[in-house]
């Protein structure tokens, strides 16, 4: 298998043992080691920005923004409705995937709850059933009550909730990351306008 040709140009030292060759090459060996060191330095300088580029998405602090879901009048008290919106963090070429759906529940005149469509188990889209007052997940059978608390199945917690506020008769939510256990639907920083209807919601709001 291994019929390698002998390297040409080595006949001059052909009568030396490898150890003797090594000794004879001490300056070249030193230069070679130096060149390895040089390449290690250059490689590091090259690699740092490349790794930075690669890890860029993981490092970015994208907090999302407030987005209008509609006027308050569009949501009758006591009902839960599906609302679509364009993700505020969408980018060029996202196409249909830029769209987001959420469930808006108007619990009372002043109290809303806006649930992420994503099941808290593994992110599948939950569906609302008004008659049994349950959200059901098609993937692994997670179920939630109308206030988003866990009813049964594999989810370990209730539905993710968006932070909301009412401004000028409109319902706004703070949207950004796709909601998962680590990136919950929540406000990254302080809301810009402090009309916080959510403050009296108590247990309904997940800590920011």
């Amino acid at each position, binding site marked *: 298998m291994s019929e390698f040709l002998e390297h040409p140009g080595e006949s001059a030292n052909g009568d030396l043992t490898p150890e003797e060759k090594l000794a004879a090459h001490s300056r070249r060996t030193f230069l070679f080691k130096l060149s390895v060191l040089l390449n290690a330095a250059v490689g590091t300088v090259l690699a740092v920005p490349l790794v930075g580029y690669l890890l860029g998405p993981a490092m970015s602090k994208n907090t999302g923004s407030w987005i209008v879901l509609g006027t308050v009048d569009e949501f009758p008290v006591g009902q839960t409705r599906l609302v679509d919106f364009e993700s505020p963090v969408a980018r060029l070429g996202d*196409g249909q995937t830029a769209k987001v759906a959420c469930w808006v529940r108007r619990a009372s005149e002043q109290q809303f709850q806006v649930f992420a469509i994503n099941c808290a188990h593994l992110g599948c889209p939950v569906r609302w059933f008004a008659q049994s007052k349950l959200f059901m997940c098609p993937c692994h059978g997670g179920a939630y009550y109308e206030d988003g608390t866990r*009813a049964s199945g594999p989810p370990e917690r209730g539905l993710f909730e968006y932070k909301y506020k009412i401004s000028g008769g409109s319902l706004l939510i703070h949207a950004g990351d796709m909601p998962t256990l680590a990136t919950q639907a929540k406000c990254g920083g302080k809301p810009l306008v402090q009309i916080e209807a959510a403050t009296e919601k108590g247990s309904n709001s997940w800590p920011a």
Partner: protein
Amino acid sequence: MAGLKQRVIDAALKSYEWLESRLGLIKPISKAAAHPTPANNASWMYVFGSAATVLLILQVVTGILLALVYSPSANEAWGSLQVLNHNIALGWYLRALHGWGSDFMVAIVLIHMVQVFLFGAYKFPRELTWIVGVILLLLTLGMAFTGQVMRFDQDAYWGLGIGASIASRVPFVGAPLVHLILGGPIIGAATLSRFFTLHVFVIPGMLLAGVGVHIWMTLLHGVSDWPMPGRIVSKATYEKEYHELTEKTGIPFVPDAAWKDAVFAAAILFSVMACAFFFGPFGPSGQPDPTIIQTAPKPDFFFLWIYAVLAFLPASMETPVMLIVPVVVIAAMLALPLVAGEGERHWTRRPIAVLMVSVIALSLGIFTRLGTYTPWSPIMEAWTSDAIPVKYLHDRTPLERQGALVLQDKQCRNCHSLNGAGGQRGPALDDIASRMTEDQMIRQVLQGGGNMPAYGNALNPSETKALVRFLMTLRGNGLEPAIDASQKLSGSGAFYVPQRPVHSALKNTK
């Protein structure tokens, strides 16, 4: 004439010598191909590795051809698959070849691995060949998963959501990990681009390099000899014994052993073509629009078992199991030849190995089967599409029939079946009254329990009454009703036992 023939032969030989003197590869490769191998491994059991390689080449070729049309953009990917399916001549066939080729490749790689495991071929001196093989299996599964994302339909979209949700459970770095996988805060253009990069550049590169190393080591150590009970692998003697066996019984790998590989590879390629031709391409299913929520996402065949396992894990165990078990399993597979590198090779002397393969295959088979019909998922349309069987409405009181309406209207059927129609999340209700008393039913309906949500907020007292009265009539084939022995003893007599036909039931309840 003879002179001309001779001149042609001479010219061909001269060209060959010119080429080989400059290239230097033809002779060593021919020599490697014709290397002697023990006659006992020229068997139909030794054809899976070469078949997997042939399938890899098929995937590379069909993949390149698909990439001529496919648009790896979140905006256009789904549409470009429709174009491939309907507007490009034979585009559907290329997609089908690539899709079926992928399923065949995963299957053949798994069979290859089981064969090597059962034959003890991973033992000395082929430990590293096995380890590289485990990595090749993971890369193959990586290709299957990223390939499913390339379809960029509803299943791909929500499959990415499942992947991100699993990643989000990693402690401390969950959020950065999700962003790294998705390429941004949401599933979108960046997500498809990076999965395309993985599917087309990164993983295939590693796969081809890995296959090269895998085959090189197979040549270096020779194809393992057929295991014999009692022939022990020992690091001190194995190589000498293998050498002697090869010298005594050796036949040239090409052509004496390789013809079986070639025939099997041809049969596999033919099967892929037949499946592609008769069953067509996979999907794409609905558009990747996350506001279309009328969907029940499901992964491709080889990931169904994971999908099923995720439905059965209790919430408290889920995150640790998801994050720790894969690491342990992969580490165990990698460490196997280092731990068990010597000893018996024959399967009759390795009962635990046989038991392991049986249990693992059976478990994967059961979970995959469950994944095909997902009994844990509510059937979202059952309450409007599956009517109450007429026989359950005969001879019922108005109140009981009202209860049947409540059962239907409150979506009970999404999880409970009647006469075989409806969800399987909860138990079938056909004989519920033979298992539960009226009091138990009321408690279960209002408070929930087990996997059942509480309906206390969704039912008013009269609805509850009607519902439970209807359920009390469901006793299968005239089974005895469930009774509460304590109430009978206390003599209160206040429990409700409907009889059939309904006239006697009325009499009974006064």
